[in-house]
């Protein structure tokens, strides 16, 4: 069993830890850093509940070892609001009723943020396609699409 010293920047703060090589990134975030907003919903890289931004890319943190994140910049749902002000995507999900049980929501929002950063004016089909790595069981997706559309408009200013 090998352990490794890693250093990551999470939501702007530098964190260092000694991790076992097999520790999955999602467990590092949830257990070591207590960032429990990132959830786990499957074993097969299917559901996207664990989506975080890894150097700006939306990735499934259950399919990445923590040791691979050494030196990386990570962003989780806890880092969306800045200075107490909600991110437009958070406002969008709230105002458009884009969440119900809330379990897929952090992953869904992180995927949406990455989507909007890459494509600030997505069409409805582009939004649906861009979120197709995230499963939601409650909303039927209609209001999630609306939430992302509202956030897109708000981010345009």
């Amino acid at each position: 069993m090998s352990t490794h010293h890693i250093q990551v920047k999470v939501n702007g703060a530098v964190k260092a830890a000694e991790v076992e090589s097999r520790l999955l990134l999602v467990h590092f975030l949830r257990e070591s850093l207590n960032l429990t907003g990132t959830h786990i919903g499957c074993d097969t890289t299917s559901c996207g509940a664990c989506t975080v931004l890894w150097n700006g890319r939306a990735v499934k943190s259950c399919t990445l070892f923590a040791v691979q994140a050494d030196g990386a910049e990570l962003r989780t749902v806890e880092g969306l609001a800045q200075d107490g002000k909600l991110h437009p995507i958070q406002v969008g999900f709230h105002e458009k009723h884009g969440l119900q049980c809330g379990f897929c929501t952090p992953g869904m929002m992180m995927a949406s943020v990455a989507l909007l950063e890459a494509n600030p004016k997505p069409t409805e089909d582009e939004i649906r396609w861009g979120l197709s790595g995230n499963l939601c069981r409650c909303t039927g997706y209609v209001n999630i699409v609306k939430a992302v559309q509202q956030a897109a408009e708000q981010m345009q200013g």
Partner: protein
Amino acid sequence: MAAVAIQGLGHPRKRVEDARFIRGKGNYIDDMKLPGMLQVDIVRSPYAHAKIKAIRTDKALAVPGVLAVITGETLKQYNVHNMPTLMSDTQMVLPLDTVKYQFQEVAAVLGTDRYTAADGVAAVEVDYEPLPVVVDPFKALEPGAPKVRDDKESNHIWHWEWGDRAAADKAFDAAEVTVKENIYIPRIHVASIETCGCVAQWNATEGHLTLYMTTQAPHAIRTVVALITGHLGLSEEKIRIVSPDIGGGFGGKVPAYPGYVIAVALSIVTGAPVKWIEDRTENMAADSFGRDYHISAELAGKKDGTLTALRFKTIADHGYTDAAANPSKMPAGLFHIATGSYDFKNAFVEVDGVYTNKPPGGIAYRCSFRVTEAVHTIERMADLMAHEVGLDPADFRMKNFIKPEQFPYKSALGWEYDSGNYAGALQKAMDMVGYKELRKEQAEKRKRGEFMGIGISSFTEIVGAGPSKDFDILGLKMFDSCEIRVHPTGKAIARFGTKSQGQGHETTYAQILAEELGIPADHIKIEEGDTDTAPYGLGTYASRSTPTAGAAAAMAARKVRAKAKKIAAHLLEAAEEDLQWEQGKFFVKGSPDRAKTIQEIAFAAYTNHPQGMEAGLEAVSYYDPPNLTFPFGSYICVVDIDRGTGEVKVRRFVAVDDCGVRINPMIVEGQIHGGLAMGFAPALMEEISYDENGNIHGSNFTDYLLPTAVETPKWETGETVTPSPHHPIGAKGVGESATVGAPAAIANAVVDALWHLGVRHVDIPITPPKVWALLKEHGAALEE
């Protein structure tokens, strides 16, 4: 200070619970960490039926950090190796000698953390002697079939029938037209994105257990746990169940699963908090499933399309134990809502429950105890009859609907429908979708060799369990509760016996109370899920929260208002009968200026209440509904079929729902969107199946196909409002309507597209290979 809006009934109030969820601050079970907490992981059987010859634990115990391995024998010393099911059957917590389905629990490994527990599980060696497997309920009923249960006479669990068999037979004999079809509604799984789990915390000093767990019914679970462990001294007052935020329930978090009991047992013997969290495979392969009904359905009618009689014969596959989450007094739940929206004079249904080597079935996947099975069957059969007599399915339905003036309507199977306007809902859906134009387009396309179909489902649900004459859980009546306390400053807290899993109770319950009391919803805090603080209730499932706890909220508020009136009379020095209520205040009739607001009254309740009256302003209501509620709707689905691949594409889906009075239209619409997605999924994608060896297919999300945003249609919703006459605010349940009603609309659309070829029926899920095989069979498959 600007006045705070009341946000009562009909207000699209934004959800209160969102504040924590959008910040990643929800408190789900796996987020819990208690000092010294241990983790349990479970060894499961690869075989669907086998004798356990030996369990060797030495290698597992040698794994650093593994503290213990327990088996059925360990639990037997405490007599907790078995537990009762809601249907009074026996379910194993851990087996003594035999496993009955694949991935059944065999042993449990306790470790200092999940990684070591998982290593321990991998190191446990079990010797099995495989036994013959039976997964097909029809084969299970054949003489000489492998017996699933040694403690039972046969694989046949029960027979249940309802209605007048002789009268139905007679009507069939006299019928001008009959149609018959075999319909299979396969096993599916709720697959909430959060799996199940718990943290059991035994306090040895105080002899008290706190069980944090993913349950939709905390109070009922407390009683069940007390039943299982009472003989150990763990009686009900020593148990506290806390249900934290739940990441989706849909019925899957109603039953008690072995993992919970194992965690409790391990916490008691170690004295440490013990966490058990399922992984996805465990959730899919070992938790309770929905459906698995094989139905042979017949309708009788006249040549003009008038329906006269119905006969449904059903085999229900319940797996190895009858663990249906079904609090009704009928073994097949509410299946006898099978006459649906139609005015049948004669009806008869019979159901036989069967044991197979599968996990316990019979939870209601977002549905009220077999309503979906009934609705799917009657709506498929209605289309069959319509086509058979040459009527448009819409005209056929209009002709046979129960008419608005017939309500309250007593059905041939004994239910009293509260209210309805079925034709109104269907007409609205037809207008929204442009029904006539679509039929024209369909005819034109067919000439060009393109297949499109239009499917209707005009469903009637039966929700809000339920009246004590029809329901109980182990004798407990199916009331639900609200307890409200108004604070001196006019703010309030209310607690409920239900438990939201995403339905937005924290938002909508406050709206009911706000409407009744005139206290702004923002000033009312809602709490659920802690059995130490909330009043007893039976929980949230079967669309019962609004019909029961929602009604309790209104009733408790009215009790508060009654006391408030006495205080107001005292304050205004007026007679009670001279006071009139207007939202938020009492005033003296004829002198609107002589008024006391609810806030003033609340303050007086603690400071200046009449002599002889107790202080405080609070009330509790346990509401036992006089009847169920009968939400309904009409859905129209338009599909296009790819003749080269068999793919079914849902082009339009219009859903008109009538759930009576809508408390929060935004949330109601959200419930319908989600319900539609969970109706669409089993219609086209989701299925759990087993091979002849009992291997499960669909135990993870690569093979159990949950639709993404890309596959899911763009829902179009509409409403009509027909209040429930017996509910205090006229509301009916709505969380499940769409899941119940949608599959038939989709299936009907597919058959409608292919009817001219001679296709009469296709079982869900309607997958591309199935459609392609139908096209091929009827010479209509293309290879381009």
